[in-house]
């Protein structure tokens, strides 16, 4: 009746505004990191940090593969790629929550532990929700709900996943690389 822009365009605009808002959510935490840690950082497991970062970056490649596969109607590639993406996401969570969180640095260890757990915790919540989102599109794909023309759910999931990945690209150096390591 009115000049409707398609639902997809509207939802896409809404999602991007949501990302803008998320940038400020994480940005405030980054501000806290630079304020409280200054030119120092806690002594963390560098190999683990590099490994989980590589895993998350690799997962974005498979997410992209899943999205282009569904656009070309290649169902098997789509399903396999979502499976790989979700598995890499879970591997990232195991690395951060399972191993790094049970290291020597704990949330009650002053500003180093507090900021580290706040930042990785908020990010891990996003990764976990992203894995659930991937599982959701995987199940819908398994039931054949997506076509090469209509698969906005996959697109939304993919840009959310890439966004989480980009956030980590900023968190990783702030937590693991910048400044000199001190024993917390």
């Amino acid at each position, binding site marked *: 009746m*009115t000049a409707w822009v398609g639902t997809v365009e509207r939802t896409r605009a809404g999602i991007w505004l949501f990302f803008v808002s998320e940038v400020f*959510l994480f940005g*405030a*935490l980054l*501000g806290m990191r630079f304020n409280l840690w200054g030119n120092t950082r806690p002594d963390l497991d560098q190999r683990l940090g590099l490994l989980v970062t590589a895993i998350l970056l690799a997962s974005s490649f498979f997410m992209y593969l899943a999205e282009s596969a569904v656009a070309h109607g290649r169902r098997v590639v789509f399903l396999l790629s979502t499976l790989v993406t979700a598995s890499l996401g879970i591997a990232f969570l195991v690395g951060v929550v399972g191993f790094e969180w049970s290291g020597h640095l704990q949330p*009650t260890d*002053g500003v180093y*532990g507090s900021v580290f*757990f*706040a930042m990785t915790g908020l990010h891990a919540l996003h990764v976990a929700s992203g894995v659930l989102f991937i599982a959701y599109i995987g199940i819908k794909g398994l039931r054949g709900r997506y076509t090469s023309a209509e698969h906005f759910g996959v697109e939304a999931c993919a840009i959310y996943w890439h966004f989480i990945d980009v956030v980590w690209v900023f968190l990783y150096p702030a937590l693991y690389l910048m400044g000199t390591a001190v024993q917390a």
Partner: protein
Amino acid sequence: MSTHRGFVRHGAHGWSDYFTFNTDHKVIGVQYLVSTLLFFLYAGLLALVIRFELLDPAPTLNANTYNAAFTLHGSVMIFLFVIPVMAGFANYLIPLMIGANDMAFPRLNALSFWLLMLGGLVIVSGNFLGPADTGWTAYAPLSLQAPDGQTLWAIGVIIIGTSSTMGGINFLVTIGTLRAPGLTLGRLPLFCWGMIATSLMVVLATPVLTTAMALLVLERVAGMTFFAAAGGGDPLSWQNLFWFYSHPAVYIMILPAMGLISEILPVFSRKPIFGYRAIAASSMAIAILGFLVWAHHMFTTGMDPSVQTAFMVTSMIIAVPTGVKIFNWIGTMWGGVLDLRTPMLFAIGFIGMFVIGGLSGITLGSVPVDTHVHDSYYVVGHLHYVLFGGSVLAIFGAFYFWFPKITGKMYDERLGKLHFWLTIVGFTLTFFPMHWLGLQGMPRRVVAYAEQFQQTNQLVSLGALILALGVLPFLYNMIVSWTRGAQASSNPWSALTLEWQTSSPPPIGNFDTPPVVTNGPYDYGESLSPREAAAD
């Protein structure tokens, strides 16, 4: 009518629909307006408790009770009345003003409202756990030592902030994508421009408040360290995070009000708005500048003088776009055929009171003055001039102006005028003497004060009583006119914006024939008063 799966009952068919998860923007608008008005009454009663305590220099109430009263007064007024009541007007009016059937995301919209109710419940229920008593600013480390209610307070603010952010995204996408054919950005009603600027600030600033509140909760319940200097934390970082949101929040509360005023003034002046583009652009300028001034709340924290100067300059610059608006409103009335109905009286009252609040704001933005009056009653006087004299007067005016559209009934003009005059007299008696108290050195947020301030404080309390009495004819008018008022026509003010071009109240789906826009929102060709226009 929209056909969202699972939401068959869509729109208001009876009063019980207002208590459901309804996705119709008009139902949600009324839900917001009525519930936030109830929160206004609650916080207003708390203000009377505060003014009762301050009748006497010695403490009458327990000091903790007093602290909890002003904390809850400020928090509820800001988070549960002024900010969300604007979302109420925006929900009701924006789809109508732009010729749409509904908001862009109707289910998200309903979720925003119910989250607001949940957040309000969480904040108010904190009273039973030992209430938050640190003021609405909750400065650390004081807020780390406050009773358990402070934790619920912070969680409630997070929930309300989430609701607010979802609303902001919804308004932006709605205005961006659902405008009727011909409704270019240059023909957008100025309230919509105000909400664009407001929503941008909401989307960018609210998450920072969310982070601050989440860290406060973690520090209080999980033994973490962010703000307590004792553990290596930084109390000032609370102030930075808090004001990074809360100064923009000042504009989140005033820009929609300025939009409401810009709708009312041309209608009752029977003239095109003066300087349409300047008003729209100044809203956007304030939205951008509003992010660059937050540290002026922290001039006395020992910051570097060069930083002080920078924030002083940015704060003063805000006065320029604000002044542009004031002169444009005066230009709109200039030479017009003024019709002094209740909404117009409140709009003119807004301009006068807001100018005073703006000027006291400029003095506070000046470092040397602020050093002397920081945390004094001068600040309390200033903030009430902009928030009550500004935002709330505009809200009252808007309630009267759109009452016929929303309810389909006319309000009582005499009761409306009684409300206005009681409000202006009570308001001035309440808040103007606060400037004197502050200049003489009376600190804010204290339960006991020096005896020489007693007479002025009693005058202030008398004003508060008159202000409260003024609310009674308003409530009576709203309730009785809604149930027994005279039938309102679809366009009782002969206004040109789209919401008046459909029936009162509008049908589900808003417009029987799709509107096509061919002219601007305020193209009043000749100076006809509404009465004359009706006689034609």
